[in-house]
């Protein structure tokens, strides 16, 4: 292989070699870039807060009665109305909510009667461990699969991959989750039905709460029985979550890579006698990655939303499960909390991918 001989033949220097003027490097430092993004995050959250607050309040439903629960008596409902400040005009309620939010108080959940922030801090890690695993699976399998399809363009391998990815992308997530459950629990019995941990292990090997990530906590505390059990429980929900993004990433990799492979610098590199595999995976893929990285940022948000279905079906106690119950019980404070969380994760994920894109491709402003 001759890859090592052209180590400095990265696209940047190739474009210089070819006499093209590269895009001017932006002066903005990475810090400034990040700060700008964070300012954008605050604006986005403000807009989101207005939308969610006023939309949810427009839905008919007596928040005070929901808070009291049961066969509540009229006096109790009125008392709760005063306690929750619901007797005030809506804009005052909003101002109060935002005022408290800046002090880190998201209010009390109407359903669990616990601070929403506390509920979320327990639920978010549980979802993130599923989402991150799904994302890693999607990237680690999706990019090579797309690369393979590009190399074997128009062959039967390409055709097979096309079929597989088309199915993966178009299957509704709840159907896919049920299908996996039916096949791997009901029929084959290879994987567990639901939950994070075998019920009996909750008695014998409970997981100590350290970070909230059950897989990390069980490992750190040396609770290997629980660790393997949690990993075993994560397989089906993570696979259900990852298949859609995997298909999408694979298709995008294929098309992006094929486009890059027609560029002048690849022709030049090919003329320089670099092997095809090296061309595709070292020089082609690096330039094809930029659109894929952009998509990965979006994928995180999509995966967070898909946890709504997957967590319900697999009884996984994360933010999706929490959100779904909050929606059905019109738990407004919890809904606001979930929206903020997903909005924040979305912006942070996009910022992170943008930073990575800048590192991979310095032409990006």
């Amino acid at each position, binding site marked *: 292989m001759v890859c090592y001989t052209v180590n400095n033949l990265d696209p940047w220097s190739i474009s210089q070699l070819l006499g093209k003027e590269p895009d001017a490097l932006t002066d903005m430092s990475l810090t400034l870039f990040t700060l700008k993004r964070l300012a954008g995050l605050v604006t986005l959250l403000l807009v989101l807060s207005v939308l969610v607050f006023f939309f949810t309040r427009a*839905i*008919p*439903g*007596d928040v005070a*009665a*929901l808070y*009291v*629960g*049961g*066969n*509540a*008596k*009229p*006096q*109790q*409902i009125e*008392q709760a109305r005063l306690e929750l400040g619901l007797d005030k005009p809506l804009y005052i309620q909003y101002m109060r909510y935002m005022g408290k939010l800046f002090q880190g108080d998201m209010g009390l959940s109407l*359903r*669990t*009667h*616990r601070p929403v922030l506390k*509920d979320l801090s*327990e*639920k978010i890690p549980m979802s993130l461990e599923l989402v991150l695993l799904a994302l890693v699976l999607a990237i680690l399998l999706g990019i090579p699969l797309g690369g393979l399809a590009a190399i074997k363009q128009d062959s039967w391998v390409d055709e097979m991959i096309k079929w597989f990815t088309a199915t993966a992308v178009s299957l509704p997530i709840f159907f896919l989750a049920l299908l996996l459950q039916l096949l791997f*629990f*009901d029929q084959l019995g290879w994987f567990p*039905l*639901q*939950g*994070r941990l*075998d*019920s*009996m*292990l*909750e*008695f*014998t*090997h*409970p997981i100590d709460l350290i970070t909230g990530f059950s897989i990390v906590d069980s490992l750190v505390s040396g609770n*290997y*029985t629980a660790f*393997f*059990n949690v990993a075993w429980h994560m397989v089906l929900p993570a696979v259900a979550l990852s298949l859609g993004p995997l298909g999408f990433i694979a298709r995008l990799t294929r098309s992006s890579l094929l486009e890059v492979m027609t560029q002048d610098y690849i022709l030049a590199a090919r003329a320089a006698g670099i092997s095809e595999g090296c061309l595709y995976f070292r020089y082609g893929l690096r330039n094809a990655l930029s659109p894929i990285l952009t998509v990965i940022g979006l994928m995180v948000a999509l995966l967070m939303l898909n946890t709504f279905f997957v967590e*319900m*079906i697999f*009884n996984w*106690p994360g933010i999706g*499960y*929490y959100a*779904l*119950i909050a929606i*059905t*019980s*019109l738990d407004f404070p919890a809904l606001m909390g979930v929206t903020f969380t997903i909005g924040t994760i979305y912006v942070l994920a996009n910022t992170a991918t943008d930073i990575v894109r800048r590192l991979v491709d310095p032409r990006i402003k």
Partner: protein
Amino acid sequence: MKTMMKCLILILAVTLVAVPASAMEKNMVYSSPYGITTLDPSVSYSTESQYLSNMYETLLKVNPPGSKAFFSYVLATGFTASDDGLEYTFNLRKGVKFHDGTPFTAEAVKFSIERTTKMGKGAAFIWGDLKEVQVVDDFTVKVILKSPAPLPMIAASADGSYIMSPSVGDKGQEWFDEGNDAGSGPYTLKNYKSGESWILGKFDGYWGGWSGKHIENILVKYTKDGLVQLKMLQSNEAMLAGRLPIDSYAKVREADNTKVINGPSYVNYMAFFNTRRPPLDRQKVRKALAHAIPYDDIIKIGFDGLATQARGPVPKGQFGYSEKVIQYEYNLDKARSLLAQAGFPDGGFKLTLTYAAENVSEGRFAPLIQSEFKKLGIEVEVKGITWTQQWAKAKGNPKEAQDIFLLTWWPTYSDPYETLYSLLHNEKDKPVWNLAYYVNPAYDNMIRKAYEMIGSNPDGALDLYIQAQNIVQKDAPVAWLADIVATWPMNSKLQGLVINPAYPNTPFFYDMYIE
């Protein structure tokens, strides 16, 4: 590499043998759709009472219908009432300890009742007639009322009557909601993970002792989805489940490893007629509709046969229920003739019916009412909306509200007053539960009189309750649809679950064991 493989195999092997067989006989998993709103025994007034009832105790407990005695003594060993029904003296059980080690005395009773009434949340309204709690000595407590009330039933209520350790002191709801408990019951709360799972673990110092067959630890897996509960039950992962999809009960009943236990419940279904909107403001039209409801079909389709036709507001088996209460039977001819008398010989009007979309049974039987009413020439628009929306709309202006409102109801304690008062007394301009918007001062007076009489003259009170229900039945502001049968799907090996309608949806785990 080889060493790593060996390690892996070893760990996997440990995983597989981690659960000793004996642990299975004392421990069980309960796949439950019933969540926890609060763990504070003074505030709780929702589905969590089924867990609190296993952690906390009350002075008395109402026995299931058909028992020899009406009450069982729990933390009390006996009580006497003054002739005027204003003073009750309870003798208390000795040798009881709370989970925190504090001994149970009369101070605890005083502390608990005062804490609950002072907080004024949840089911605290049951103590509305309380004047004072006096400690006579360590094991005698006197409860003094402002006006007569059925105090023993209140003290045995499913909500708001728990006795807790006085060591709780000033601790608020947050302390409990972190997963703490202060009860004296057979089980104590462990490993509380809100919205996920919690363990009701054996309390070694329980006064009832642990000899004989008992379940020692119950892992409650909060499982909202009925299908997941079903699968957990079928695969023996769970010994007990809460609420399965309606059409799966037959399967569970027939399978070898699972069964379904049935028993009475005080849960009933009803249809409120809007008495403020024409044409339902006419008594004869309402009576006609009460005769046009296909009660048997509702029971068959809506409840898979597991219900009986209701006879008025008081459910079957509860004090106040009587065969003397008028019951409307399904009879379209009678309905037609009543409609003709009211001036609607061919129907010819439209009605809207609302039900809670999340209530599977209501969704199944609402169309049956629609099709029967159509036979009388009455168009019914059936609207399934979320419970909160349905209720919010009904609490607005009655003139613009729905015509028919389907509701599921259950009482808080074993006296009919709460039901009769909440559902039918004059709520004036602020309707909450009287969603027929029914007004009848004679009725209001009669139920109050019965309530005050219950301590001194239970027979007279019963008579008044029956008369009051018949006043309602003659006016027909509500069609009483079905008293439902409680169902518990479980593993065939699980024994001892007694269904007690005074404590809806409550499995008392201490009585249960695995065969």
